[in-house]
């Protein structure tokens, strides 16, 4: 079983030039940076806030805050990592405002039952996502990730959806590398466990897959 293939990142060679131009007052250069990353920032914001309007606000506020503080950007990290850090903070503030009854912190490190291998693990159908329409699948994925603690889904979205490295994620979230790895493992296992309900193999006569195509039964 091979490792997962990382998402290939955008070329960033001209990025520092755009940042420098924007810092010197070229709003057009900053607009190019917005074009480059607005989709990513929206996705991250919606994953954290779980709310469309909040995500829209986060995109606007994060980019404006970045523009206003460009002179604070040191250039030691990538612009994108710095921007993500700003956006994550904005998104967490939104979440805290919306759910004041719950403490929302990236330091949250929740122990769960998913941390151990269950005795009986049901295998999934060969192409589980194909059992559902695109809309149904999105609904399942949305509902499933919604149930994770904010600290877990933030790490998961940065590492596994956006393809940041462990080091970049740690930098963007101000967490240690072991903390990122621990949360990532738990996020992955919890999502896997919760998705199993929808994707597990059913040994039924009317199953779409060919009978006998699987040699391991649950």
């Amino acid at each position, binding site marked *: *079983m*091979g*490792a*997962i293939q990382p*998402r290939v990142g955008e070329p960033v060679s001209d990025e520092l030039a755009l940042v420098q131009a924007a810092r010197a*007052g070229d*709003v057009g250069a*900053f*607009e190019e940076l*917005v*074009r480059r990353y*607005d*989709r990513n920032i*929206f*996705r991250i914001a*919606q*994953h954290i806030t779980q709310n469309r309007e909040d*995500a*829209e606000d986060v*995109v*606007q506020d994060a*980019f*404006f805050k970045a*523009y*206003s503080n460009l002179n604070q950007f040191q250039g030691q990290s990538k612009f994108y990592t710095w921007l993500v850090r700003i956006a994550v903070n904005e998104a967490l503030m939104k979440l805290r405002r919306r759910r004041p009854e719950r403490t929302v912190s990236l330091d949250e490190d929740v122990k769960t039952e998913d*941390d*151990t*291998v*269950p*005795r*009986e*693990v*049901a*295998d*999934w159908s060969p192409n*589980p*996502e194909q059992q559902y329409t695109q809309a149904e*699948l*999105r609904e399942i*994925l*949305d509902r499933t*990730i919604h149930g994770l603690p904010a600290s877990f889904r933030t790490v*998961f979205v940065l590492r*596994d*959806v956006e*393809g940041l490295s*462990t080091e970049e994620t740690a930098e963007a979230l101000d967490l240690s590398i072991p903390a990122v*790895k621990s949360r*990532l*493992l738990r996020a*992955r*296992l919890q*999502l*896997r466990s919760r*998705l*199993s309900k929808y*994707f597990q193999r059913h040994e039924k006569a009317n199953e779409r897959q060919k009978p006998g195509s699987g040699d*391991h039964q*649950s």
Partner: protein
Amino acid sequence: MKCSEFLQELTDYLDGVIDANTKAELEEHLSWCHNCYVVCDTTKKTIEIYRDSHLYELPEDLRGRLRSAIVSKCQARKKAGPEGA
């Protein structure tokens, strides 16, 4: 290697950042432990499904509106000077 030890290494294994000896031990475990094989395989699928899901795509019309709003605020900020905004 026990299942719990396998699980601790799962993230590094899936990310392909693991030394050759540990990788060989993990794969030996996978060769006979069906539960861990399934957990490993379906965790990998979980990641791939989320990565390829196009969840929370930014619609083009909204994207245009957000960008215009950002650019307007940046221009106003520029006009107001470094102390403004």
